[in-house]
């Protein structure tokens, strides 16, 4: 699980991991909560990207964080400063297991669920779909078509292009332009609200 050398740079995660590892088990609750708040959203994003399911991603996040904290508390994670590598490695292995059907989602939480600190996470607020619709209406026809078809099913450019008679490269250009406009419009509306 330590294959990711680029993640070995010391950062706030490493400092927090060292505090947890150096304390008696369970005696660094502030550090545990802070590490959870830092890493849990990243594990969740990994799950969203690779599992395409928000509940599965949330389960992955809980499993990964519980396992990480348990390993830090017990001293089993011998290089706490490599905690990012450990977390990414657990994410990858768990997603592979889930995709192979070797691990069921329900199993993820069974062993370590009680070990998680209580920590509130920032979750991006849901957007007002009527405002998003108004912003979509302002896009050029091709941009709107490509954005809707790309994001509704989270489809790659080649799939969308094949359906619209466009090249994948063209779809990527239209998609980039469209999402940039959409993002600006939505953010402008949120700022004005």
């Amino acid at each position, binding site marked *: 699980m330590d294959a*990711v050398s*680029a*993640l070995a*740079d010391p*950062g*706030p995660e490493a400092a*927090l991991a060292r505090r947890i590892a150096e304390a008696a088990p369970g005696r660094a609750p*502030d550090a545990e*909560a*802070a590490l959870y*708040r*830092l890493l849990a*959203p*990243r594990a969740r*994003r*990994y799950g*969203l*990207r690779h599992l395409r399911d928000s509940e599965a991603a949330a389960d992955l996040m809980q499993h990964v964080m519980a396992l990480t904290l348990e390993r830090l508390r017990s001293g089993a994670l011998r290089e706490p400063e490599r905690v*990012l590598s450990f*977390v*990414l490695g657990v*994410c*990858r292995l768990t997603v592979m297991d889930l995709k192979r059907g070797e691990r069921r989602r329900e199993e993820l939480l069974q062993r370590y669920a009680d070990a998680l600190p209580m920590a*509130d996470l*920032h979750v*991006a607020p*849901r*957007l007002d*779909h*009527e405002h*998003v*619709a108004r912003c*979509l209406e302002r896009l*050029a*026809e*091709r941009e*709107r*078509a490509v954005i*809707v*078809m*790309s*994001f*509704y*099913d*989270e*489809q*790659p*450019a080649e799939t969308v292009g094949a*359906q*619209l*008679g466009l090249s*994948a490269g063209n779809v*990527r250009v239209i*998609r*980039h332009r469209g*999402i*940039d406009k*959409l*993002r600006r419009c*939505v953010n402008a509306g949120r700022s004005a609200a």
Partner: protein
Amino acid sequence: MSGPKGAPPSHPPHLPHLSLQALLDHWLGDSDAAATDAADEHLMRCDACGAALDELIALGDGVRAALRAGGLLVVTSGAFADGLARRGLRVREYSLPHNGSVNCTVAPGDEVLVSRLQAPLAGVQRLDIRMLDSMTPEQPREQHDVPFDAQRGEVVYLNPIDALRRLPAHSLEVTLLAVEPEGRRELGRYTFRHAPWPAGGAA
């Protein structure tokens, strides 16, 4: 960008952020295995890029919600429309032959209204759509440079079903226009004769 509450921000100063294009490619599956791994590693330590990805994910959720709410007029593909029905949405579809017409309505439980227009699209480089309804005949609406697949010979679009559901009986004339160097050439004209769903009628 500040870090989560109780912890300092996490992003090494020497690490360049992922571009919007890279994030889009990562999220929508357009990056190869090496680029995907690199993006995963970056996102595991960069909260600014994580927040940008969260923003894209939220936009995607908003796009899905807007489509499901029936507020969009959007040209799409037959395959995409077929997929909506497979995913359990209640889809009402009207498929018109070249220059055809149809009596149409929207049932209370309908979630998506699809129009398919057969047309001779071979050789067409650019396509516009003009829509003229009988309630506001002086106000034609135009969609410019719409995407289409000439090989399939049809133009497919999703209607703003939520607004249509509330409209009285009327007709809508849809004209497909090929845009050519000499000007626009009419490719086909289609008529939808809309009637509201009868009060108390079963869907």
